[in-house]
């Protein structure tokens, strides 16, 4: 029996070694390698795909303008399948391959696990798209930054927008994905801090076929407004449908997930009047320029998710430029020193920056509120969280 074990062991060993084929990296004009971890087959795929496209476009643009420090940027894109353990494996792969920076565009939990690698290997690690509040609080990792719109900033923006309504009693609904849960937690905490009573808090489980029981409870609790923290489209559609079906009338204040354009087709007829947070103001000059350039390049219309990836790569490139070298320590310092970086995302005039040792870079005052007009995302009606 141990003979077979021996055979098996040899087999595993030879396969492991076969996969260890070294990555030849010697090139004439050595590019600066930036590693990207994305999700190509897992649950984050619908979001990771456009963000990655935006990142790839940004790298092409930067290289067309002569690159960074006179060297081109090379993106090494790895697929973590939306699985946290593989995300950490991919982070190691990127570090081994000589990436000076890891950019995570996958699930929040995957980014979390990849952080154990960036912390251990002292590699700058950045996510321009994850919005979970806990990424920078659960693990004290000085090598990690986040510039996605945090759940706490989203709810602050919504509350600022609704200040005139003087909300006292509201309902909160979400679904069971990790990010949906994290976002709901941020919402809950902010509402409690503002002494707004949550009279009904509901969860629609993944794969549900209806949200009517949850919406009935909300109807029975009769709140002044409904906060939607869900981030998974089919479940969000169920909520909207039940809202409409049960004849609910209170205003809906939704997380930035509702800014994804797919709702215009899958929730047709259900969207009119919904207020949602967005980090994208189409009227902002930088955003306009980006949209035009992207459209010209790929023939498709970009939206906010593309913008996150685009800004992410520009922000990283900027830090490397200021670091003046590809030394990881210097890049870390330069990342932390980022102030007033202007991207395409955010309200007019808002910038990214990691002031006061913070590692969350989205301008807390830089989000906007937009309202659906029929099935189309309308103009910006409110800016900032003050």
């Amino acid at each position, binding site marked *: *029996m*141990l*003979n*077979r*074990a*021996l*055979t*098996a*062991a*040899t*087999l*595993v*060993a030879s*396969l*492991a*070694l076969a*996969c*260890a084929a070294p990555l030849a990296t010697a090139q004439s004009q050595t590019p600066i390698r930036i590693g990207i971890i994305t999700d*190509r*087959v897992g649950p984050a*795929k619908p979001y990771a795909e456009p963000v990655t496209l935006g990142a790839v476009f940004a790298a092409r643009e930067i290289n067309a303008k002569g690159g960074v420090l006179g060297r081109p940027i090379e993106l090494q894109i*790895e*697929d973590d*399948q*939306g*699985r*946290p*353990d*593989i995300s*950490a*494996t991919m982070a*190691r*792969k990127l*570090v*081994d*391959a000589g990436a000076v920076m890891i950019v995570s565009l996958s*699930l*929040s*939990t*995957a980014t*979390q*696990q990849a*952080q*154990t*690698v960036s912390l251990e*290997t002292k590699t700058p690690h950045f996510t321009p798209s994850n919005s*979970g509040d*806990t990424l920078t609080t*659960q*693990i*004290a990792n000085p090598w990690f930054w986040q510039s996605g719109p945090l759940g706490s900033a989203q709810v602050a923006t919504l509350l600022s927008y609704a200040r005139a309504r003087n909300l006292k009693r509201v309902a909160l609904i979400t679904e*069971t*994905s*990790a*990010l949906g*849960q*994290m976002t709901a*937690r941020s919402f809950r905490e902010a509402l409690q801090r503002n002494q707004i009573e949550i009279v009904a808090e509901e969860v629609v489980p993944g794969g549900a076929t209806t949200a009517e029981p949850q919406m009935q409870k909300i109807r029975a609790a009769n709140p002044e407004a409904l906060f939607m923290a869900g981030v998974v489209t089919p479940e969000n559609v169920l909520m909207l449908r039940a809202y409409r079906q049960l004849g609910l009338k209170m205003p809906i204040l939704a997380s930035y997930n509702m800014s994804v354009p797919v709702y215009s087709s899958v929730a047709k007829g259900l969207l009119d009047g919904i207020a949602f947070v967005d980090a994208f103001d189409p009227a902002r000059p930088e955003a306009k320029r980006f949209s035009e350039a992207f459209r010209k390049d790929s023939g498709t219309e970009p939206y906010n998710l593309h913008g996150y990836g685009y800004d992410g790569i520009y922000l990283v490139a900027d830090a490397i430029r200021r670091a003046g070298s590809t030394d990881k320590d210097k890049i870390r310092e330069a990342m932390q020193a980022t102030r007033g970086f202007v991207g395409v995302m955010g309200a007019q005039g808002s910038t990214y920056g990691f002031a006061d040792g913070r590692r969350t870079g989205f301008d807390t005052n830089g989000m906007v509120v937009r309202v659906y007009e029929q099935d189309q995302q309308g103009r910006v009606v409110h800016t900032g969280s003050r």
Partner: protein
Amino acid sequence: MKSLLQAALVIAILSAIGFLLGPYHTDIYRKLLLWIALALSYNFLFGVAGQVAFSHFTFYGVGAYAIVILVTQAGLPLPLAATAGIVLCVLLALAVAIPATRLDGFYLALATLALAQLFIVFLNEGGELTGGSGGLTSYRLPDVGGITLSGPRYTVVIVLLVTFTWILLARIDQSWFGRACRAVRDNPQAAAAMGIDVARTRVIAYALTSALAGLAGMVYAFVDNTVSPPIFGLENAFLLLFMVIIGGSGSQIGSVIGATVLYLLPFVLSPLIGHHHALVFGVVMLLVILAQPRGLTGLWAARPWRSR
């Protein structure tokens, strides 16, 4: 004596690899070994004892969370925490298996399907205890006997886990208990007529393999020093089932091959064909079963050029 020597040799070779590989390949290697450990024990449950259960990753998670919580939050010493974790796995396994294995058919499958989902709900709603959807992180393995087990040394721990699992299951498989399990799988009625207590055999097989999954989970907890709910869900449970099937259910070497092929497939294919690797996975799976329901080891046994 000879078998002891062979075991030592296997451990030495597998550990030596751990010292030769770079960080990336070490990481793949460690996680592959963990998948192999899981596939071996799941193979015993599914392939040998014939029970369809979806709770293997639940016990993997129970082990992982238990040791982290007991060491970091309850402050127990490591050996005590590990023992308590195993006891917890066995108790939970008995609570599920004693009622569910009285019955034939797919009731265990359904009960464990429900258990697996319930466990994820528990992890997400566990508050401070489980860290909710973000899980637990920022902890370290305490030193064992004054030795810091990190880097390649931790790979040795994983190698020990895999060889322990292999030897234990191989011994059991070739004993009266292994024969009883196979008999129960093939024909419960005939097995009972041989004096085999069918329910008891099923319960022991389920509890034993669940405890082994829990043990593997404890080792996993310190690989990335992070535990979070997505690892322990149904997706991975299905993947594990596929691994055992592809390799050839009922065969230990088949489980090793199945786990190796399916775990490495995306790493090899992803750079070549991008996200289509999941489609290739399905096609490979179908073709292997169509060619030989006993998986890759069955294909090897039935190879046409075989000399008779």
